């Protein structure tokens, strides 16, 4: 039975995958002194298990807020979020791992201790923590860097550590909030490839927020395009480029067409 499911996944992923995360009629408004500012308006979508979905939108569209809500760090005014069939109301590291922008590592901990931080919160034994952390560091290509402190690591390496930390409790869903935004162009490309490699090895559901259209098309199975504030989903674009994605695809007509389609949506207010 398990094998059958796996075969199906390999052949027609979108059609047979179980829903991993569902956002249901979600709205959010910030309450001010006398006016409430709508930030997110009636957002609904679902992400199939093992899919890589990218959310793009102009800055200030509320895509990061949406991600914080999916992480259980912020409560929406209305609507709900379901992960593995159960609502997300508070952070639940068993179901959802989060990778933030740069500077999210604790500078007073080593790379291995940073990766093991979520386990330390749950009183996992020191030895077990260490084994798991080193295993995760190996997965993200940082074998032998466990004792380094964040200030001894490059920007790309820091984000590898952050990804390892996000995966350390083996959650089915990984949320990523512009994780490569602070990196230079070259590192960003490398990290994109690395992330896809890690994703294909771990088969996590990834929801990735970015404002880079190229990054969105390069990484995604599906791109959700958000409008300017109040943010709503204005388009869902399946990316049918073959995997593994390669650098050469960036110059292809299919790639350009997808990127243009997103750009047309975002530029018109």
């Amino acid at each position, binding site marked *: 039975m398990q094998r059958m499911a796996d075969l199906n996944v390999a052949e027609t992923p979108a059609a047979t995958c179980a829903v991993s995360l569902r956002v249901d009629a979600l709205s959010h408004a910030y309450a001010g002194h006398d006016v409430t500012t709508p930030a997110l308006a009636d957002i609904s979508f679902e992400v199939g298990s093992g899919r890589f979905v990218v959310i793009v939108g102009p800055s200030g569209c509320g895509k990061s807020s949406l991600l914080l809500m999916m992480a259980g760090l912020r409560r929406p005014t209305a609507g709900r979020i379901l992960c593995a069939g159960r609502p997300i109301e508070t*952070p639940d*590291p068993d179901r959802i791992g989060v990778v933030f922008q740069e500077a999210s590592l604790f500078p007073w901990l080593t790379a291995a201790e940073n990766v093991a*931080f*979520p386990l330390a919160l749950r009183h996992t034994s020191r030895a077990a923590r260490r084994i798991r952390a080193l295993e995760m560091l190996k997965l993200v290509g940082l074998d032998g860097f466990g004792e380094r402190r964040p*200030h001894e690591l490059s920007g790309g390496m820091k984000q590898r550590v952050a990804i390892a930390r996000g995966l350390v409790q083996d959650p089915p869903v990984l949320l990523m909030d512009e994780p490569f935004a602070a990196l230079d162009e070259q590192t960003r490309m490398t990290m994109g490839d690395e992330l896809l490699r890690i994703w294909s090895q771990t088969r996590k559901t990834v929801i990735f927020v970015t404002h880079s259209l190229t990054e969105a098309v390069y990484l995604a199975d599906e791109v959700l395009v958000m409008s300017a504030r109040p943010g709503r989903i204005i388009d869902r674009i399946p990316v049918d480029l073959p995997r593994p994605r390669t650098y050469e695809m960036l110059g292809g007509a299919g790639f350009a067409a997808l990127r243009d389609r997103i750009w047309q949506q975002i530029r018109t207010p």
Partner: protein
Amino acid sequence: MTAALSERPAALALLRLAMGAAALGVWELLPRTGVVDPMLLPPPSVVFPALVTMLGRAPIRSDLLVTGAEIAVAFLISVPVGALIGVLLAEDERLGAIFNPLLFFLFGIPKSIFLPLFILIMGIGFWQKVSFGIFSTVLIVILSAASAVRSVRPEHLTVARSYGATRAQIIARVYIPSMLPILLEALRIAIIFTFTAVILAEMYASRTGIGHQIAGWGENFMMPSLLAGVVALSVIAVVINEAIRMIEHRCSAWRT
């Protein structure tokens, strides 16, 4: 040249020792050669024996103990009280908005002008020195603790929360390690404030304490004793300072 020196700690230590020895040599030579009146500046060969004799006398030792106790009590009260107030002011925006300007004004005023007031209110004695020491120290602790709280990065709090950290875990694993470098630096500066305040209070009006003795030796033109007292207090201050700095260094190696 300087880079090469910093890579050779032994050579650097040797040079620093030589500098110290040279300074002592100059101090010895100035009065001996008559450049400076030896009555005003007795040489170290006179001052250090005076220091040894002084430390051998029971009344002086008890003066040192009194001063030490006053500094310790004032410091040990100022630090937790100041840290608590500072954290409250940084965490509660309204409290901060009300009290911060007041604290900044108070911080800018030289504390010594309040000394006569303390004598009138508290009389002359142990608690007068302690209370003046607290008054001089607590403000710097409050301001440092508040800025230590503000140095905690919101990103780090978000990360901890997203991994399900409880409030106690956030305090123990994010707040305290983030604040530690600034707090330890503050302690080092704070104890200088306490030291200064207590000695000043003793010199101004007191019956006990090493500050009282130093003032007396000065008034009576007992230069070897006066300088011996200065050397003794300097050594104590440097030792305390370096001890805190060593802890500081170990706890904030990541802050580079």
